[in-house]
């Protein structure tokens, strides 16, 4: 059995914000990470001035708030305490990206700072965790907007200095669903399209019109209303789901900087069940992306968006081949990648989906492309992270799938028998999972098994 995943933070010193007469200096401590040259303990990625100190300070506070918030508290779990995971920062020549994921696994937040909004003295590509501690949060809240802000991510000297007694070390167990969710958001984002765009005062109006509380399963749908958006009770084509709408109010402290808001979502129709959505708040030189799960009580980890890709049975060799080509690109172009590795372009999408499931990629709406961001996860955790996939594989191996005729399959599991119909647009199953979610949380294990069996058709007696 594989141990529960955890992340060990080891900071040479706490992150801090200091001020003198000329401005403020924000030093973000780093813990472990990857660079194009390999793994490093205390990476040094950035040094320079930020053009919009107030934007960066408030956005970092927002990320820290998301990281430590339970937007939904399950009944009987009031006192359960989960340590918030520190934000992940990715440095590329195009700028800096900070990512955070809520404790309840239902809200994803990312801050992108464009290189154009940075006066860069040093920039190296890579990914790491950064420490955002309570005193730093307080200091960020007090940052004067007009003060120049010098930002440093990591310490150059530490690469040669002996770590002193300021070492901050902590091992944070991260629930599997947290890791799954973090990876899953990116694949879900890749399947979304731009649905709405707001600018000016309409941005504040919309965010401030959101209810401050809602019931657990509440989902409203953002629809066009002239230059504004209206929250409707029912989905319509083009609508974007806002499940647990008060969660989007986390953007409120940034509204005074907002120049625009873009809403992304999957295709909706009048019978759609609640869906995930993503909201990108544009600010001068930076933008914040908020991802919302389809229900407050549902984390992203249960969405199963990756499973269809995995069922496509991506070859490990192809995965390795593509993975080795990635070097912190801020925009991965499938066509160019396919040419580089010598694979058909159609094969690249499932490979990228699988890599995202390993936490190797993030998705950028503005670029409409994945970017390379390897999270500290082990690829052998895949089966643990996707039990439905491994269950399905077992059903196939145990010979529990048979042809039912007319594109249907019979899947026997735990003394029950399910009928699976594989369709062009939608797969259907008679199990409870399908009945309840109708495919919105990914395929059930019976559909996955039927899909896998349809490709391989092994002959074995069912022992499940």
């Amino acid at each position, binding site marked *: 059995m594989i141990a529960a995943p955890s992340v060990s933070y080891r900071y040479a010193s706490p992150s801090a914000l200091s001020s003198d007469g000329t401005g403020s200096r924000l030093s973000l401590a780093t813990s472990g990470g990857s660079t194009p040259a390999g793994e490093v303990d205390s990476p040094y990625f950035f040094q320079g001035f930020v053009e919009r100190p107030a934007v960066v300070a*408030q956005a970092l*506070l927002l990320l*820290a*708030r998301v990281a430590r*918030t339970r937007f939904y*508290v399950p009944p009987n779990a*009031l*006192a*359960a*305490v989960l340590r918030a995971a520190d934000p992940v920062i990715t440095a590329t020549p195009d700028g800096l990206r900070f990512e955070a994921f809520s404790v309840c696994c239902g809200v994803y937040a990312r801050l992108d700072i464009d290189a154009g909004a940075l006066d860069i003295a040093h920039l190296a590509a890579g990914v790491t965790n950064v420490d955002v501690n*309570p005193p730093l*949060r*307080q200091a960020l*809240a*007090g940052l*004067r*907007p*007009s003060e120049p802000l010098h930002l440093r991510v990591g310490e150059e000297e530490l690469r040669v200095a002996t770590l002193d007694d300021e070492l901050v070390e902590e091992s944070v167990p991260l629930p599997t669903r947290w890791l799954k969710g973090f990876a899953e958001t990116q694949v879900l984002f890749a399947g979304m399209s731009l649905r709405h765009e707001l600018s*000016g*005062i*309409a941005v*504040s*109006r919309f965010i*401030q*019109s959101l*209810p401050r*509380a*809602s*019931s657990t399963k*509440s*989902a*409203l749908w953002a*629809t*066009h*209303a*002239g*230059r*504004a958006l*209206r*929250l*409707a*009770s*029912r*989905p*319509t084509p083009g609508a974007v789901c806002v499940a647990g*709408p008060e969660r989007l109010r986390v953007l*409120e*402290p940034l*509204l*005074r900087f907002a120049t625009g808001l873009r809403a992304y979502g999957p295709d909706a129709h*009048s019978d759609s069940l609640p869906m995930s959505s993503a909201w990108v708040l544009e600010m001068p030189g930076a933008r914040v992306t908020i991802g919302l799960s389809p229900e407050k009580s549902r984390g992203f980890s249960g969405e199963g968006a990756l499973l269809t890709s995995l069922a496509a049975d991506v070859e490990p060799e192809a995965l390795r081949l593509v993975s080795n080509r990635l070097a912190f690109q801020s925009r991965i172009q499938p066509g160019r990648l396919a040419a580089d590795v010598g694979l058909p372009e159609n094969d690249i999408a499932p490979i990228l989906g699988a890599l995202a499931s390993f936490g190797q990629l993030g998705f950028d709406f503005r670029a409409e492309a994945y970017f390379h961001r390897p999270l500290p996860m082990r690829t052998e955790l895949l089966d643990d992270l996707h039990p439905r996939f491994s269950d399905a594989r077992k059903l196939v191996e145990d010979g529990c799938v048979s042809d039912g005729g007319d594109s249907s399959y019979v899947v026997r599991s735990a003394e*029950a*028998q399910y009928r699976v119909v594989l369709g062009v647009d939608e797969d*259907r199953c*008679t199990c*409870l999972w399908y*009945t*309840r979610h109708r495919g919105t949380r990914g395929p059930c294990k019976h559909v996955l098994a039927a899909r896998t069996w349809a490709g391989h058709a092994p002959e074995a007696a069912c022992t499940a």
Partner: protein
Amino acid sequence: MTEYKHLWDFYRDLSRLLGEGATLRDLYEALLMVPADERQREDGSPAELQSLSQWWSQSPSFVPIRLRELFEGLEVPHGEDYVLAMVGHLGGRHEQEVRLHLLRHDSQLRDDLFWRIFEVEGNAGISLANVDKYSSRDLDWHRTVIRLVDEGTINRARVLRSCLEALNRDFASYRAGWFSKTYNALVPDASEAAADQALLRQCLGSSVTATVSLAATHLALIHKQGLLEAPQFVEACAAALSGPKAAAVGILRILETIAGDDAVSVDAVVSAASSGLAHPHVDVQRASIRLLQRLGREDIARDSSGDLAPAVVAELLPSAAPVAAVARLSDATPGRSLAAAPVQPWSDEDARERFAEFLEFRTSALDLELALAWLAITENAASTLTPLLKRALRSQPDGGDQWLGPLVQVAVDPETIFLPRPIWQRTRMVLVDGVYVERPDGQPTPLRTEEERTALPSLVTRLREVASILQGRTPRRRLLATPTDTQGWIDPDVLLERFDSGPVPLPVDLTQAILRIRPADRDRITRALGAERPVITEAMSIEWTSRVSSAVRPSGSPKWIWWSPVIVADPVTDPSPLQPALIPSITTSRWDLERRQVSPLVAGALGLVDPSSTLPFAAVAVPVMHSATSEVNLSAGTSLSTLASHPGVWTSETAQVLALGMAALRAEHRTHAAELFAAAIPSRISPQQAAIGFAGCQPAIALSRWASSLSDAAMLAPDAVVDLLTHLLPRLPRAARGIGALVGLLLDESLRHHRAVSDPALRVWLAAFTGSSGTAKAARGALALG
């Protein structure tokens, strides 16, 4: 010295010891009277501290740890868990003396560790806010700190500063509330507040509205005394202009008075004032525009005029045109599409999948009808439903429709008794051979039947009829009452054919079938079937009654008023299985609502009782929606959906369901109701009739919620909103709380859509507003539209 049997005895004795003037050493010596094994368990280990930092034992469990630290040299890490253990357990829930004593006499605790309570937020179990919430009033941490400040034990200036520092630590609003409450309770004067004005400025950017309000209030006080650091204030204040209305207006007032200061950058003031234009409240928009006009930058406001309230634009930027934001009513809008479609009967092939889906959501009354139709005719019920039995028997937390599980059970095992009458058996304990044994005491008492527990008894009896078919006691058949279209109607010819080809009709099935025939055909079909026409309640009224609390406000008016709908129907007869279209006269609706459960499924089924009339449904839905104005009601959403798809005629009583929905507690229900409003007025009910319904339940709702919902509905159907307000406002008392929001909405929508205010009754009503209130100004503005 008293020896204690348990540590708990020591805790209980602490008050006595302190009353007798015990010192810390005395307390420690008393602790030594606790058996060593129990005493030493309080060792301040990381595990113990972690437990104390999360679970509130309501006892002074921190005291032994602290005494052992002081007198035994116990080494305990003073991390966050230690601080939270102190917050939660430095005294009991109903006393303050232990906490006061230790803070007065333990200098290290007072001078060092105490101040860390301002740094540690806490968690769902232990925090200053949570411990105080459940502690005796006047004996909580808040009062302890105030008392120690007042007596000079702890430094007042440092407490004030620490509270502000805590408010800037981005704590959750619930936990931050303790610090703002304590800061305000100490009533700092202007010079004290001015000493920490940098922290107050930081608070303006807080995401907690109470913190922003606190900062705005105290900065105004500082400004009044001429102590404000104006340039820094201007730089920081924009963050508060998207906050609470009063705080934003206060900030703009300060900006107005300092805009001319030499030290203040005009551009910075303009930038801050521009932020106020985005505020949703008209008072903030007004103040921002006025300030921009004073600074010679009206152009900024003019550029944003399309996003400002039309009344504000008309008043301050008269040459700018308001922009109408109108959303499209789609076919998915509730109530928009009432086209009936033929139902798709279930077959043996798809029954399992459809039954599984029905069981999962349990809200579609039409699916229930189709399920019953299939169960009554199929020979394969057992084999089809066996895999679903476990799911069907799954308990439903809200109750009310727990009949489906037993029905599936009967289908699978026909020997099962379907919905037996429950009984209650009193018991007593008797001593038998030295052991207490529970024995029956008297005769069992029969409890209410399922029919007596539900708002729709005919539905339960129809389930019994189908159960009898499944049990083989009645022949299989096509049910007569199964709707032939999605609105619940039955084609008369189909009914006659079912009747002619089937066995002796089941009584409730027959009655229900007749009620689903269109009124024009009912007499003919009833005669053809040789049946009696069911009694139908043709008229009812809803009266709203109130009772008041004995507690009164300083003005002498009651503190609380509880309103209840009273359904008055004629004849005064409750519905029964054979008379489902009778409307119960509900005299104490609250009691009856609880007695007669209205689950989401029943709410939907009520809509199918008599498709020609919404009254039987409205009689039950009004109490449901009324409860949804103050609490979560799981049937509220289904009730609105049922009304939206109900083909029956709407009356002013039906409109009350909608009116209450537009005042619901939950935003999603208000949104749903606003869409139904836009779809239903005037196509289903005239604005005049709807206004009568709205006015009828007005005493029981908050007008501000109507204003918000009608504003939402105006994005879909602005004319319907203006028309309703035209007929509704003259029916409302002018002094009603929140009336200004409705008058303001009338003005805004009339301006936005170029509507004149010409209705004579409305003009008379508006003209009676005098004075300088916002409502009076809006009324005059509306009258000016002619």
